[in-house]
């Protein structure tokens, strides 16, 4: 067992860090304030390879492991949490089409998605189906060679500015087994985009409601088979949870780095903050917990890469732990900045606002506990180690 990054991973991380430092970080505050979706920068990220990290190579992806992707996303998130989070969602949706789409669908979308020339959104949550995703009500009715989509999706990242939607809709019975997944042209007739939501954070990506009104989707756009949708959604979310946990860690690391610098700069009572043991201990706890969270995320990514039987439980544990730790570290880093942490001249409050939502989406941290508890309490099952 080796806990060190390999030569490739070091090179990927270095490059991602440089890209994020130059292309994200100088603009992140402005994107947040102006609610700018930086499509040009996403294109540039695509040219660098960031838009198809774990999609297969035959459609322009890099075929990297989830662990590689996590190492890369962490560096990007240090520059802009919200933009990186969108890139991870795009990667997830692109991978779903590449992995479960038929050849026509893959070729129709994936080469441009992996290149970042087109963007993807993921549509699972509905007004009345959040944590209880399997109760979703959007329908896809088969009519000849088409499906007809009706229903609403909410909290859709990128909605209105993306090109393809991966949509979960009901084709059969109630519950998870009646759900199917589709790759839907975002500009198809009958798709109505709601107003842009005003959010606490994640402001560099638009979030909208989407309504489908008799949207005609060719049957070939079905991902996998009818009834596979929920399985596909959950499989995608295992990776999605690692991605979001990673965004928390990158953001927390950026916050921690700022706090460390500030402790050397700021003087009170005639000495640097770094000389106060209360703050030394705080910083020590922050970095300890952050390192633990990072290792847990990488462990989960490695389990996912290995196709481990308990990968879903590991991804859930990592997501719960890393997003909580990531939020707390960002919050404590803000605390070290005192009043300066609360004003927007410094990025500390943005780190907190952006990291907050990670405890809610891709399955709330409460749902993560449900997944973990269900697995631990399973009778006659092997121990989780």
């Amino acid at each position, binding site marked *: 067992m080796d806990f060190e990054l390999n030569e*490739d991973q070091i*090179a990927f991380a*270095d*490059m991602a860090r440089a*890209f994020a430092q130059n292309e994200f970080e100088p603009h992140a505050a402005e994107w947040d304030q102006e609610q700018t979706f930086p499509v040009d920068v996403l294109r540039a990220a695509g040219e660098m*390879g960031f838009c198809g*990290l774990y999609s297969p190579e035959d459609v322009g992806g890099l075929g990297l492991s989830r662990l590689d992707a996590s190492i*890369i996303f962490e560096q990007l998130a240090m520059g802009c949490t919200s933009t990186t989070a969108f890139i991870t969602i795009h990667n997830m949706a692109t991978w779903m089409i590449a992995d479960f789409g038929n050849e026509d669908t893959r070729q129709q979308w994936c080469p441009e998605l992996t290149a970042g020339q087109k963007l993807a959104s993921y549509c699972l949550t509905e007004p009345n189906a959040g944590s209880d995703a399997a109760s979703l009500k959007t329908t896809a009715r088969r009519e000849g060679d088409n499906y007809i989509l009706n229903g609403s999706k909410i909290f859709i990242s990128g909605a209105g500015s993306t090109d393809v939607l991966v949509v979960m809709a009901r084709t059969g019975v109630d519950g998870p087994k009646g759900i199917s997944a589709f790759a839907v042209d975002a500009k198809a007739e009958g798709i109505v985009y709601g107003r842009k939501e005003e959010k606490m954070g994640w402001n560099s990506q638009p979030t909208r409601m989407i309504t489908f009104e008799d949207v005609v989707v060719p049957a070939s756009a079905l991902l996998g088979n009818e009834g596979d949708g929920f399985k596909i959604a959950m499989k995608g979310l295992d990776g999605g949870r690692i991605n979001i946990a990673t965004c928390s860690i990158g953001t927390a690391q950026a916050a921690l780095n700022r706090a460390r610098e500030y402790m050397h700069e700021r003087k009170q009572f005639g000495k640097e903050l770094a000389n106060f043991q209360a703050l030394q201990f705080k910083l020590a706890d922050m970095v300890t917990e952050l390192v633990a969270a990072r290792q847990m995320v990488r462990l989960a990514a490695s389990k996912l890469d290995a196709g481990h039987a308990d990968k879903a439980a590991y991804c859930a544990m990592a997501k719960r732990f890393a997003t909580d730790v990531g939020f707390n570290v960002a919050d404590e880093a803000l605390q070290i900045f005192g009043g300066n942490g609360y004003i927007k001249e410094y990025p500390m409050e943005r780190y907190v606002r952006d990291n907050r939502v990670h405890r809610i989406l891709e399955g709330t941290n409460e749902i993560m506990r449900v997944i973990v508890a269900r697995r631990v309490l399973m009778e006659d099952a092997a121990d989780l180690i």
Partner: protein
Amino acid sequence: MKVLVAIKRVVDANVKVRVKADNSAVELANIKMAINPFCEIAIEEAIRLKEKGHASEVLVVSIGPDTCQEQLRTALALGADRALQIKTDESPEPLAVAKLLKAVVDQEQPGMVILGKQSIDGDNNQTGQMLAALTGMPQGTFASEVAIEGDALQVTREIDGGLQKVSLKLPAVVTTDLRLNEPRYASLPNIMKAKRKPLETQTPEDLGIDISPRLTVLEVTNPPERAAGIKVGSVSELVEKLKNDAGVL
């Protein structure tokens, strides 16, 4: 035309350097390293020459222990065609580096050698000039613009008080200044492809060069801390301070 680019592994420009406790050198343990920024500009210029059709091959060379292969791989990922490591655990001085590079020039017969004007660690600003002298090639140092016109190389140099244009006959040595170009990023696919590009290793002994140091470093210390400023009450006091305390008038 083959272009030879010499690069150096140095402490990353974003890292705040610290002096070792025993004042023998700068602390390098666990420090992030990178290609010297001026060398990165040299790589970029060579790749642009290749993209414009002026160069047929870009060979990148670095002198150092195996860790410098990391920087050579980055150069390959940026677009260099092949790499050469001259393996040594010593930290050779500019003259030794220039001699090693001359040996590489003799071996490879490049049409142009591009180097950074200086490395951000030693700040010697000597290697390019020494290499030009040793090889008898003309030199265009501190380049902010490079253009090939027939057999001649037009180099715009950044000098005190303005720009100077020189016309050199190829083969020639060019050293880069900050404004020559803005280096690209190595894309992830190119980082992966770089692994398959050739990286050869030679030693100073293979090249028959003695790199033993001629200089002894006595001590490395931090620059003196800047003292706090003062406020002056009047122009006459300011003039008085500038004359007597600062000694600049």
